[in-house]
């Protein structure tokens, strides 16, 4: 795992990035073609049979959204397990049964159909009942499938485990010595999280929150980076998925409010204003509690999603104009955007962690005014 020497040379790093994204470009072109093709033959459109005009927003949204299969190359893909919790019981089968949405699958309890990469129950004659989301709970069907995003998340967890367990064993082995190899690459980042994020914002009690901040920081960062990799281990838009950012922001919300001390609660329920203003202040403060993590959730989601959309839009230009020569313009732009996204990946992880630390800091601040 000692690849830090690779990162030391700017030229190597740059050419690596370039190479990765050039590969990405070619991969994506195949991908868009391949995935576009079956769409025209979806059950809903079977009557037409003729070639449909290229719809970039559809393609882009398909890439942004979650999926029940991982596309590898050409027509090859990995079908992922579908786990459904229905009102009649649990249902587990492979997404290969859907054949990319060409076929309905008759399970134990219902017949299921894949609509825009989402599982829905077919009831009676083509009456679709969509899978439940957090906001609109459908009692009949909750989708707990191992989707592309879940697989990507586990991949990133694996990478994080490999990196940090080896680093921590290096610390055990080389106790009290200067860091070396991967250790010396990771240590400044950890020190950065500690000295520039945790300590100035939380104060002297920062040590309790270091594990959370470090985990959040590296989880977001690694997932952002993996999201940028266009082929198999990556390819998912994990941190650009609102469910993931929702969980992260919810953790921040819980941690901040559990650790809030009496000054924090006094500031919310008994601020220094005339008593008759309290009925106005309470809702405002309560909205403030929610809105801070909400902004965190939206920020990470929108940043990453927007980055993916821009990259995919630039690629789509080639297919919109149906001319390979457009790639001369769009590919350099894509490379530029991808390099920018590398920065954004680190920046968003930093901002999320920083704001979490800031919120924790204001919640546990001993005394203000």
């Amino acid at each position, binding site marked *: 795992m000692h690849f830090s020497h690779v990162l030391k040379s700017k030229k190597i790093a740059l050419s690596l990035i370039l190479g990765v994204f050039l590969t990405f470009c070619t991969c994506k072109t195949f991908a868009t073609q391949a995935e576009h093709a079956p769409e025209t033959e979806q059950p809903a459109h079977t009557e037409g049979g003729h070639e449909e005009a290229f719809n970039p927003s559809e393609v882009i*949204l398909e890439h*942004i*959204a*979650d999926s029940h299969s991982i596309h590898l190359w050409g027509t090859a893909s990995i079908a992922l397990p579908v*786990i459904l919790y229905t009102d009649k019981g649990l249902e587990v089968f492979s997404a290969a049964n859907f054949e990319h949405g060409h076929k309905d699958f008759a399970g134990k309890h219902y017949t299921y159909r894949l609509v825009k990469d989402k599982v829905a129950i077919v009831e009676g004659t083509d009456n679709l009942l969509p*899978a*439940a*989301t*957090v*906001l*609109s*709970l459908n009692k009949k069907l*909750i*989708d*707990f*499938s*191992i*989707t592309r*995003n*879940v697989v990507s*998340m*586990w991949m990133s*967890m694996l990478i*994080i*485990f490999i990196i*940090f*367990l080896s*680093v*921590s064993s290096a*610390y*055990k082995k080389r*106790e*009290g010595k200067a860091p070396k190899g991967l250790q010396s690459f990771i*240590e400044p980042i*950890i*020190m950065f999280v*500690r000295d520039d994020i945790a300590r100035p914002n939380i104060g002297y009690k920062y*040590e309790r929150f*270091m*594990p*959370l901040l*470090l*985990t959040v920081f*590296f*989880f977001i960062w690694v997932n952002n980076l993996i999201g940028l990799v266009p082929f198999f281990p990556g390819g998912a838009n994990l941190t650009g*998925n*609102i*469910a*993931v950012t*929702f*969980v*992260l922001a919810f*953790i921040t919300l819980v941690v901040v409010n559990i650790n809030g001390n009496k000054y924090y609660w006094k500031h919310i329920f008994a601020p220094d204003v005339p008593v008759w203003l309290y009925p106005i202040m309470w809702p405002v403060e309560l909205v403030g509690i929610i809105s801070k993590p909400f902004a965190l959730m939206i920020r990470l*989601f929108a940043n990453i*999603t927007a980055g993916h959309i821009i990259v995919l839009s630039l690629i789509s230009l080639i297919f919109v104009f149906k001319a390979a020569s457009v790639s001369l313009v769009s590919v350099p732009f894509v490379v530029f955007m991808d390099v920018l996204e590398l920065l954004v990946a680190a920046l968003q992880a930093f901002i999320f962690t920083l704001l979490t630390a800031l919120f924790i800091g204001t919640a546990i601040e001993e005394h203000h005014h």
Partner: protein
Amino acid sequence: MELVTPEIGLVFWTSVSFFILFIILAKFAWKPIMGAISERERSIEDALLKAEAAKDEMARLTNENDALLKQARAERDLILKEAKVLKDQIVADAKDNAQKEGARMIELARIEINNLKAIAMADVKNQVASLSLEIAEKVLRKQFEDSSKQDALVADLLKEVKL
């Protein structure tokens, strides 16, 4: 709308995965890493403090040495001074004594000399007296060997004697 609506499945899996990630990393990564880093920092700080203390100690020792040296020098000076005084005194005493002794000896010598001189003088006087008596006897004897001279003398003497 679909894009901004969290799905329960992914929320569930993210929560579970993140929880596992957090627990494992907190236990097996952050704890040892943070522990090692802070331990190392503490040891570095300790070493710095120790170096500072050693420097202070050094300075203190140097100061002490200086003070000791100064004190020793002052003491030496004092001793030297005392010794000098003593020496001077001893020399002065010795000189004094010597002078006194000398004076006394000189005095004694003078007295002795005087005594000896007196004895010698007395001796010389005696010798002179006896010599002159002898001479006078011899002269007289020569003078009075012939009777004419005796007569002449008598005649002279008689001439002198005027009655």
